[in-house]
């Protein structure tokens, strides 16, 4: 068996919902028994409509929410069974870029501090070089060191997303989960951010799990694609195979809608 960077096996997350006092309980299967794996340097696109469980999958892998069942192997270790301390250490290697940058960045902390935080936590660079490293990262994502003392509300949407990216790559991760990184942006900015992600991938030899509802974007960036529908992966394969020769009905609908 080949050693993948990330292996997800039978991952599930169910929610019990009770609408009011007398209604019966409803079981919602947000993520239902999904399995996939990602190799080193590969980009897996996770695509599906809203509410299909893409984002939940990403957060389950990062343990931002707790999984019900399943296993997630990262470099051969099950992250779902790690204790808090080890998990915190592991987070250095798995990072996430959120969809809503302005909401996931603390509005009361300066940009310099946001980016410096992972550097401090993992002692990526010595304390004296943190400033320089922050400047370098900002340059990398197309900003300048001058922006360091600004707060997030002083930036545009695209700039905020760049900050989110800079923070994610600051700890020099191996795997980055991109959770719809461009869907909240203008089309013109979308392209810039996607190109930035592609450049960074080459430069830092990253692996992406790219979550999106937009097939065009996924097609642009991914090597393989997994299609999710109602918590399940209905189809998974190479980009060409999925785009040109879809087997599942839902996939077909998606591709048709794109065209």
């Amino acid at each position: 068996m080949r050693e993948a960077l990330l292996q997800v096996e039978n991952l599930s997350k169910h929610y019990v919902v009770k609408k009011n006092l007398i209604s019966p309980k409803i079981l919602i299967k947000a993520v239902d028994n999904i399995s996939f794996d990602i190799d080193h340097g590969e980009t897996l696109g996770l695509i599906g409509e809203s509410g299909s469980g893409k984002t939940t999958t990403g957060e389950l892998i990062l343990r931002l929410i707790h999984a019900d069942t399943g296993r997630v192997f990262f470099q051969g270790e099950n992250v779902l069974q790690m204790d808090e301390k080890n998990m915190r250490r592991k987070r250095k290697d798995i990072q996430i870029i959120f969809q809503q940058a302005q909401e996931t960045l603390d509005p009361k902390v300066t940009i310099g501090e946001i980016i410096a935080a992972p550097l401090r936590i993992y002692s990526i660079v010595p304390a004296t070089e943190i400033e320089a490293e922050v400047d370098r990262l900002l340059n990398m994502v197309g900003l300048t060191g001058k922006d360091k003392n600004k707060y997030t509300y002083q930036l545009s949407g695209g700039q905020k997303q760049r900050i989110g990216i800079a923070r994610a790559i600051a700890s020099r991760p191996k795997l980055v989960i991109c959770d719809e990184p461009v869907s909240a942006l203008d089309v013109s900015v979308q392209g810039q951010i996607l190109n930035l992600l592609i450049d960074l991938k080459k430069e830092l030899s990253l692996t992406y799990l790219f979550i999106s509802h937009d097939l065009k974007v996924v097609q642009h960036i991914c090597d393989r694609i997994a299609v999710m529908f109602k918590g399940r992966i209905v189809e998974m394969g190479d980009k060409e195979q999925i785009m040109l020769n879809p087997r599942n009905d839902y996939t077909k609908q998606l591709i048709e809608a794109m065209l």
Partner: protein
Amino acid sequence: MKKKNLSLIIGSCILVVLIFTINFPSLLTDINPYTAQTMRTWNYENGELNLQAPPFPPSEENPLGTDEMGRDILAFIIYGTKLTLTISIFVVIGRFLLALPLGVAAGFGSYTSKMIIEQCSIIFTALPALLIGVIILKMNFFTNLYREQSIVAFVLVLTIVDWAKLGKMIMERVQETLGKPFIKGEIAIGKSRLQITLENVIPHLTAELVILFFMEIARVLTMMMQFGIFGVFVGNMGFIADTEGGQTTFLNISYEPEWASMLGSARNYIRLAPWTVIFPGIAFFISILGFNLIGEGLRKEFQEKNSVYLTGLRGMLSFGKLKLFVRQKSTVARKQKIYIVISVSCAFLAVMGIGAWNQYSAVFQYTDAKEIFVHEAFDEVLIGTEQSKKMAQNIGDSLMKIGLKPMSEKGYISEYTTEKIYVPTEARLKVVSTAMEIEEFVHQTDFVFQSFGNKELNGELYDASEMELLSTIDFTNMKDQFVLLDSNIYSEKGFQYLVKKIMTESEVKGIFCILPAKKALPYPMGNEVYNGVVMWVTPEAGNRLKQLSGSDVQIVLKSRELENIGRNVAGMIPGNDKMVGEEAIIIGIGYNYDRNQKEIGEKRILWGLELARKLIQMDQEKRRTIIFVFWDGTVSDSYNGKTAYGKQPLYNPEKSELYVDLTRIYTDKGHLYYNSRQAPITRYFSFSFNHQLENAIAKRNVVQNEYKVDMYPGAKGENYMDKILYYEVNTPTIILSMQEDKGNTNKLLTLDELGKSLLETLKNNNH
């Protein structure tokens, strides 16, 4: 142009005024807040003595009137700002110290913390905090504490009683903040809980916490005001209302300047003397308003995203980011910079003002003076001897070290000439009875020589103790005999006259004088030289002698003459009050002691020095002059330094308001005799002082239980000499005498306790 934030401006102004008051109370009033005036004027009308008693209404002297102890209300409010605000700020800090960790922990989901907060909240909602506070703090134990202890107790109770509300508020805000999406991001980059709390949650609460802090101060002040109305306040109750039937009740007013206590008398005085209640009420009103306005103003200010205050605050409160803050500050506008500088310096002043307390007299140990009093150990220090000269020098040096000023250019020591001084060097008395039995008497325990010279005499003992000899003209039958006389059947003057007459007119060998029952043997020192000898004998020895009538008395006496110069050592702490700074309180202590008093003699000096040192340390503003005099020659009435002072006072007698005589301290633990007959009601200050000293001693009496204090005048062992300042230079005199009480060993007044009482009174009534 942005709309001005009026509430913040007004609130800040009030705060600045309060901080100024805390730091520089003496700039705002000339009056010492501790000064109590128990009486202002008196007059006779229709044959009745009428006293004008406090509370005095507002007048030129007391702009806002005085309270029922005659203390100036304006000064009391001004000096009370510090204690009142300190308490409220400490309470708020205490509440935050409790509420913040527990609130944050509960917000993070700690079950225990949540339970603690909720249970406390439930308990103190069901039982009003006011009620619990009043019940706890009204206990006797709390009302008699010293200032520092009282502050701690008060802060603890006020903190515990009402912190849960704050805790709950913080908990809810933390939960709210933790629900925000960016927390996910912080977890994702691997921050621990602690890091998230410190770096993300607390900065989000900063604004709210600062607002809460000011609002909470206002709330605590309100609560203290309510406590005050129920008669619960900081600052021990120092004034005794009544000691009827052994039960002591205190006046319900604070000894320390403080606002809440002034409201306590509302019930009794609101109609009679409304000024005692209204002005402290206004003080409370203004400061509560001030803190509320600041809270409100800050809330408005923080709503703006670019608020410079918020940036600064966050910078100051986020840990390890101070460097960043400094850098940020350089980018803010100059005007804003000035604001920051002003608020930082205000905060600094507030901290300084609250931190600096005058040394308080709660600790008094006369042994502490050992470090400043360097002296040779003498077995006895008697006027005219070399020891006395050295001792005077030593005491003078110590006074200088303590920081007292000399009374004249000549220095601390003022010399005076006395009559010739003789002391016996050898003294023996032996009686050989008719049955040839030898009975020995011990000098200074059984008898004492009162006339001197070098003599070896013997003769027959003649008992005249039951005869009245004043009318006798011819004493020839006493020739070559020793006569036994009983002074109890004569008047004092008459007896002196009689002894002199017998000694000069007859050829008697000697006179034994039986001492009056209450008197102690005087010290063998004097200037009389006769052909025969004069001796005092104790009543017991007198009885023995009576049995031996007709026996042969053998006497050996050798004496030497001392230098007839006495040295009083005096130093003063000059007064610094504009009005009464020149008026002086004189404290007199004897430094002579003989062999029998060696131990207490040294202690007495130490005690006096420590008293002086503590007074200097208290560093009181606005007080009278205090003079410490160490008298020479106190072992003998004839050479007593007080006589010299009476003839040639060191300080203007017209400005001498009081003399406290402490020469008759014969033990460091004993029975206190207290005579204030020479501090009459016509001398306001001394009368008032006496009243408070009595109070201070009686208070110790109550708190520590059952000292023996004799408040009745005319105590044991005192005589004309003690009151000489009153009779010669008309200085009112209070005499304190401590004597051994052999029947009672454990519950006795100690020197330290007496020292504390004196210090307290000097502090209290020295304006």
